[in-house]
Every structure is written in structure tokens, then in C-alpha cells.
């Protein structure tokens, strides 16, 4: 029997919906489930309606479902705004002080008053009530609370217990095994991957949905031995990062589309001056300010093409925390081995979604070393080598005069307008592009799922893989997903596409950006399912949309 359970928890901003969802997911984790949390919130600080959908399953998941089994309502909107999420069997647990609903009501105020607890602990009451209704043993709650609610654990537990005792078990969620996975967000996975890749400095200006990466690294700067700087704007961010890199420190920056607009002159500089840098760009709904706290996949062409002139770059779009961790480490490695800008292209769904990560399942990192200068003067920052990659030295090195330059330059880094040297240096940079593309052939730059002999295939990129994977398995379709988007894995894709008679692109944008990129490389898609309301496409919506295109 398929084990699949979904819980909607909703309330006002400030009700602690995010932390409640983390605790509930951890409860499911302790019962052996793979989990995923979708967090939905408007762009405001207090009030409004926040909700999270926590899903547990016996197979790895990366998306929520439209309908749910439990509704935990801390405000009336949680009932009123989510009519489509209710099934006949859905059980509602609600704060009877402020919500009118069918199901099991508890007076949160009553519980808090009895325990003399502050209003902020109301979410613990709802967690306790849910646990009892779902038949989750009390000792699991005792185990989970201290890690997630380190401040006032005891009083929170008392609040939870009092609510726990007021509810009757209705819908037992069975333990399905002893597997315990790590629950982390996409941004945390990116941060950890960057650190595994040798990150020593992170520079960023706050912008949703990248900000939680800045917060995570700033909070853990001591633990990981890194420097975290938040400068005056994104222009300063990228230029400061290039300063770090020039001086020999492995550095990354993070932003979303709007902030990245300001970074493009710095990206082009990194391309010309051959300075390694990693850029994390997490997409949200555009254009312009758009929907700050909602998702999109509409910056693919922007990232692949940003910056004046031509220069090689690496672009990877991970779809879950496992890929985010692994490819972030690889991106750092690639940036330094080939002295290019390397992009990690995420989106709100990945960045702020919480996924189960199995540490034992992480791919082995086989990272290389950049080529260092042999110490024989004169040092030439842009020395001609067969490969196009010049040995690195950093200021402060004995006998090395390290000159980098945004102008066209000679091997020493001195400005030139000489046609011969300009041609030579352009070819040098383009040789790096070829070398990088060749090196990528040893990586799994395209991931696949579903039956390998299916004639119809879905093609997608990034976090949409969560919905696509479920639907592909259910309908017996092949799923093909390029993970690396620059250099474009044309060879491997063509090999993977053998036997496919019908190819359908699934993307969260309105024009089919991956489909266009595929077309540019000679691969034509037969149909497109495009979804662009800021919310991640769910398996049920995708199923309906595929029917419309004749699947």
C-alpha cells in the first residue's frame, strides 16, 4: 500500500507556521517517511495568511499535492482559502477561539492560559493536537521538540501535552521504518555544498528567495570558518566578491533576478578577467518586483546570456537538496579550475522548500585543484597554455606581479588593442569553454527517471522535477532533465532522447525557455505544459495539463 500523507497548517504571519511545519515534518521523519514542505506566504511581516503543506511518503518526494489529509487551522482563512484541498476524509483540527469548522476544536487560549504560556506558543498546541489525532506517540514529540524549539522547550512541551490530551486519535499515521533522513532546505543544501567545495567567503544583499542562504551562512560563519559580508548593493556584492577571489579566497554571491540585474557588469568582468566566482541566483516570479515570495523558472535565458561580450560560463539547475549539495560543490570547483563564473540557478520552490536528504546517498565529490604558478618569474596572469587555463598566483606571492584587467589584455594583463593579441586571447577564453564542455562529459549532466523504453518523454529542469517524476512514474513516461545548462549537454541529451517519439516540455514560465534552448541545439519539443501563476505545479495539475496535450 502506498503511504502518502499531507498536512496543511495555516495561520497569520507571526503564528509560527514555518516552525510548526518543520516540527511536523520531523515527526513524520521519525516515523520513517520521506518528507517535503511547501511554504506559502505573502510579502508582509505580520498578518496576512501563511500556510505550509507538509507531505510524507514512502518514496522520495519533491512537491506537495493539492489535497490534504489533515488541516491544522490557526485562522479562518486556513478553512476559507483552501476549499479545494479538502477530501471527504480530511480531518480538521482548529483553534476554536478564532476558527469555526467541523472537526476537532481546541481552545488555544485556554491551553496557553492554563500553562501561563505566551501567545507565540500557540503553534505548539496545534502540533500536540495533531500528533494525538495522527496517533503519533508522545515520546517522539519529546525527542523532536528540543532540536527545533531550543528556547523554552519545556513550556512548549507542556502546551503541546495539554492539547495532546484534549484530542482523540482519528487517523493513525503508521511508522513505516527506521529510516531517519536529514531535513534541510534547498538554500541550506546549497550553502553546505559550497562549503564542501571550499567556500571561504559569502557576499550577498538580501533578496527573497535567496536571503535564507545569507542568513544560514551568517549564523553559521564561525562554525564553518567563513567570512560573510552584506554590502551596500548587488553591484558592490559582485565586485567585492571578485576582490576576494583575486586575493585567493573561494567566494560565492547570492541574489534573485532583480539583484542579478545589477550584477551583470561584474559577471562580464569575471569573464574577461578570468576570475573564479560562484553566483547563486534563486528565481522568483517576475518581471520586475513581481511576486517576491513566489516561484518561477523565467530567468534561464537571462542567466545563460547575461553580460556583454562572449565568455564561457557554467550554469547548473539543481532540482532537490541532494543535487543542490552536490552541484554547489562542483560549481565552486569548476569556477576555480576553469577560472569562470559558475551559476547555481535555483528557484523559490527549491530554495525555501524542505526536503529529506539521505547523507549516505550523497554522490562522492571528486574535486580537482586549480593550476598554481610554478614560481618562476616573470609571472604572467594570462600565460598561454595549451588548455587556455593560465596558472594562478595571488597578490602577496613572492616575485609575482599579478595584474588582472577588464580591458582586452596581453599575457601580463596589460591593456592592448593589438588585433593579433585580441584574437589570441579570445581564442584562449573559448578554449576554456571547449575544455569545460569536455570535462562535463564525465559528469551526470542529464538525469532520467521513468521507464527507459517509453516513447513519450517529459523534459524539464530545476525543481519541477518533483511533479514530473511522480507523473512520469504513474503514467509510464520517461523523464529527462538536463541538470547542467551551460555548457549545454547536447551529446548526452541526444543519446538520452533515443527512442523518444513524443517530447513534452514542462516549465514554470510562459514562453518555454528550456524548449527554446533545446531548439537552439537542434532538439524540438512536440508540446509544452507551461505554468506561471507563481505556485509550483503539483502532480494533479500536471496530470490534467498533460491530458490536454493528448497524453
Amino acid at each position: 500500500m502506498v503511504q502518502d500523507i499531507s498536512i496543511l497548517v495555516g495561520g497569520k504571519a507571526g503564528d509560527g507556521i514555518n516552525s510548526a511545519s518543520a516540527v511536523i515534518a520531523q515527526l513524520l521523519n521519525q516515523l520513517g517517511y520521506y518528507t517535503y514542505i511547501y511554504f506559502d506566504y505573502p510579502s508582509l511581516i505580520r498578518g496576512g495568511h501563511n500556510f505550509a503543506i507538509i507531505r510524507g511518503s514512502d518514496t522520495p518526494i519533491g512537491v506537495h499535492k493539492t489535497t490534504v489529509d489533515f488541516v491544522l487551522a490557526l485562522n479562518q482563512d486556513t478553512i476559507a482559502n483552501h476549499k479545494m484541498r479538502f477530501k471527504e476524509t480530511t480531518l480538521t483540527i482548529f483553534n476554536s477561539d478564532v476558527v469555526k469548522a467541523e472537526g476537532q476544536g481546541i481552545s488555544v487560549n485556554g491551553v496557553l492560559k492554563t500553562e501561563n504560556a505566551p501567545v507565540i506558543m500557540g503553534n505548539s498546541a496545534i502540533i500536540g493536537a495533531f500528533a494525538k489525532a495522527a496517533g503519533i506517540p508522545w515520546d517522539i514529540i519529546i525527542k523532536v521538540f528540543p532540536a527545533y524549539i531550543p528556547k523554552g522547550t519545556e513550556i512548549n512541551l507542556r502546551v503541546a501535552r495539554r492539547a495532546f490530551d484534549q484530542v482523540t486519535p482519528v487517523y493513525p499515521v503508521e511508522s513505516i521504518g527506521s529510516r531517519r533522513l536529514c531535513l534541510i532546505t534547498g538554500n541550506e543544501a546549497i550553502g553546505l555544498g559550497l562549503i564542501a567545495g571550499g567556500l571561504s567567503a559569502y557576499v550577498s544583499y538580501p533578496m527573497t528567495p535567496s536571503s535564507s542562504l545569507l542568513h544560514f551562512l551568517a549564523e553559521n560563519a564561525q562554525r564553518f570558518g567563513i567570512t560573510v559580508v552584506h554590502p551596500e548593493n548587488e553591484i558592490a556584492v559582485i565586485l567585492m566578491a571578485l576582490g576576494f577571489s583575486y586575493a585567493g579566497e573561494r567566494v560565492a554571491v547570492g541574489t534573485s533576478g532583480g539583484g542579478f540585474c545589477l550584477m551583470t557588469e561584474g559577471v562580464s568582468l569575471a569573464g574577461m578577467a578570468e576570475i573564479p566566482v560562484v553566483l547563486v541566483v534563486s528565481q522568483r516570479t517576475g518581471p520586475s518586483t513581481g511576486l517576491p515570495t513566489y516561484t518561477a523558472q523565467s530567468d534561464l535565458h537571462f542567466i545563460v546570456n547575461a553580460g556583454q561580450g562572449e565568455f564561457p560560463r557554467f550554469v547548473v539547475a539543481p532540482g532537490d537538496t541532494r543535487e543542490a549539495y552536490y552541484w554547489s560543490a562542483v560549481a565552486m570547483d569548476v569556477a576555480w579550475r576553469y577560472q569562470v563564473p559558475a551559476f547555481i540557478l535555483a528557484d523559490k520552490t527549491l530554495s525555501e522548500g524542505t526536503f529529506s536528504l539521505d547523507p549516505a546517498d550523497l554522490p562522492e565529490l571528486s574535486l580537482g585543484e586549480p593550476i598554481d604558478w610554478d614560481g618562476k618569474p616573470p609571472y604572467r596572469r594570462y600565460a598561454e597554455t595549451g588548455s587556455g587555463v593560465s596558472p594562478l598566483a595571488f597578490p602577496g606571492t613572492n616575485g609575482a606581479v599579478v595584474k588582472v584587467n577588464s580591458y582586452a589584455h596581453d599575457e601580463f594583463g596589460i591593456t592592448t588593442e593589438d588585433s593579433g593579441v585580441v584574437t589570441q586571447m579570445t581564442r584562449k577564453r573559448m578554449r576554456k569553454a571547449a575544455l569545460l564542455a569536455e570535462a562535463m562529459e564525465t559528469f551526470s549532466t542529464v538525469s532520467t527517471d521513468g521507464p527507459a523504453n517509453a516513447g513519450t518523454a517529459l523534459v524539464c529542469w530545476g525543481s519541477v522535477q518533483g511533479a514530473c517524476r511522480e507523473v512520469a512514474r504513474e503514467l509510464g513516461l520517461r523523464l529527462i532533465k538536463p541538470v547542467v545548462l551551460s555548457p549545454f549537454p547536447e551529446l548526452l541529451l541526444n543519446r538520452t532522447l533515443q527512442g523518444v517519439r513524443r517530447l513534452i516540455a514542462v516549465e514554470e514560465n510562459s514562453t518555454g525557455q528550456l524548449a527554446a534552448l533545446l531548439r537552439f541545439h537542434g532538439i524540438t519539443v512536440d508540446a509544452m505544459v507551461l505554468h506561471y501563476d507563481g505556485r509550483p505545479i503539483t502532480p494533479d495539475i500536471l496530470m490534467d495539463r498533460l491530458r490536454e496535450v493528448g497524453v
Partner: protein
Amino acid sequence: MTGRQLVTSAQNTWCPGCGNFTIQHTLKTVLAGMEQEGTRLDDVVLVSGIGCHAKIADYLNINSFYAIHGRAIPVASGIKLANRELKVICCVGDGDVYAEGLDHLIFAAKRNIDITVIVHDNRVYGLTTGQYTPTSPLGFKGKSTPMGTMEYPLNPLELMLASGATYIARGYTKKMDLLKTLIRGAIDHRGFSFIDVLQICATFLNLTDHYNTHTRDLPAYDRSDALLACEKIREWDYNSGAPIALGLFYQRKAPTFDEQLQHKSLPKTERLLRTREFLATRQ
């Protein structure tokens, strides 16, 4: 001890009579002096923006980051934060740093990061062939303002004082000894140091006669007194015919951003281990 050959073989393309020659020569003299006193010039980095001034990055045989227009200061800040042993000097232009990159100048001063900013202030865009800059006098007729500018120049020293700079000076390319003292003082200063260097543009704004007749040395006063410094700074607003004081206007000691942001770097293997430890807290 044999000194480093401080000039590269790059062909110099500044106009004859350009003030940049003096700044380059003075910087070269200061660096040679520092080398004689035992400073490793391998530990010096020059960062430039884009404009006539910036060619100095090609001409001086030291570490250099020839950046983009207006952005020398964030690059310099990153270099300093990465390696505090380095002496980081920014050569920037007035259009470069007062227009395109003004935000970075203010924030570097606000942070008191230990870098030196030398502004080649010729009060006109040279390389783009003669447009007004933020320090051009009111009514300046440039190619983009043929009827004359309608905005007053800003007083960069006053701005720097308000922003928190801890070393504020003004030099003039025809007063080389003073300039040398100011540059050396700025490099030795721990914290954000700023020198606005008046230089003429031989082609688009030659103010030699005006500067020669109006400049004078600052009188003695307590250089750490911000109110006195402000008074002296406001004597000339970059527009009037008032006397133009030269010298160090203001200097004070304050904690630097880079010394406060020091991190303990960890070996790669240790970092990897800690990512695993972190993951375990979420299991």
C-alpha cells in the same frame, strides 16, 4: 638593496602636460621609499576604475586590478577583507568615483575599511572627451551640456567627513612634495584614507593658472577636531573663487572594518566534516 623596476613597458598614452604623470611619479616615489624601508612591494595592490586615471594600473609594475567604471572601491574592499597583509590603494577618477560609484565611496568611508583612495580629480571626463563631472564648476560647458551645467559641484571632502572617513586630505599635482607626504600618510593610516588630488586636464579643463594663484597650505589646528575640519573643508566649495586649502584636513583613530571581520579559516577537510555534523542535527 636593489629596488624594483616600478614602471612597466606599456606605452604611456596620457596627453602631454597631463596631471596623471605627477600622480604616477609621486606614487612611484612613495612606493620606492616604502621598499627601501623594508615593505615588500609584493604586498601592495593597486585597484583602478576606468578613465584616464586608470591607465596607471598598466604603467606601474605592481599587483593591479584594472576594474570597471566606478567599481574600484568594492574590489579593493574585497581584497583587503581576503588578506589583511596587503596594502590596497585605489586610484580613481572624479567621474568614476563621485558619479558612477559614489555609493561605494560613502560605504567604504562608513565602514572605515583600511584602504587608500586617491582621486585623480580633473573635474572633467577626459577619456570620453569632455563632459561635466560632479566636481565641474557651475556653468561648465561640456559636450553634454553645451549651454553650461545647471548644477553646483559637490564638495567631496565634506561628503567624506559626513560619511565617517578617518583620513581626509586634498593635494594638487603642482605641489608634489605635499602630495608625496599626503599619499604616504594615507597609506600608513589605519583605516579609510581619502585624498582628493586636484589635477588639470591639459585638453578639456586646464585650470593651472587658477590653482597656482588660489592654492595655499592649511594652517595648524587639531586635525582630530571634526568641527574645525568641517570649517576648513567648507572654505572652498569647488565653485567659488575662494582660496583653496591643501593638506590633511582631518584624521582620527577608529576600529577598522577588516580587523573586526576577521575569520578563522578552516582546512578543507575540517569544513567537510562540519557540514556532516550540521546535517546530523537535522536527522
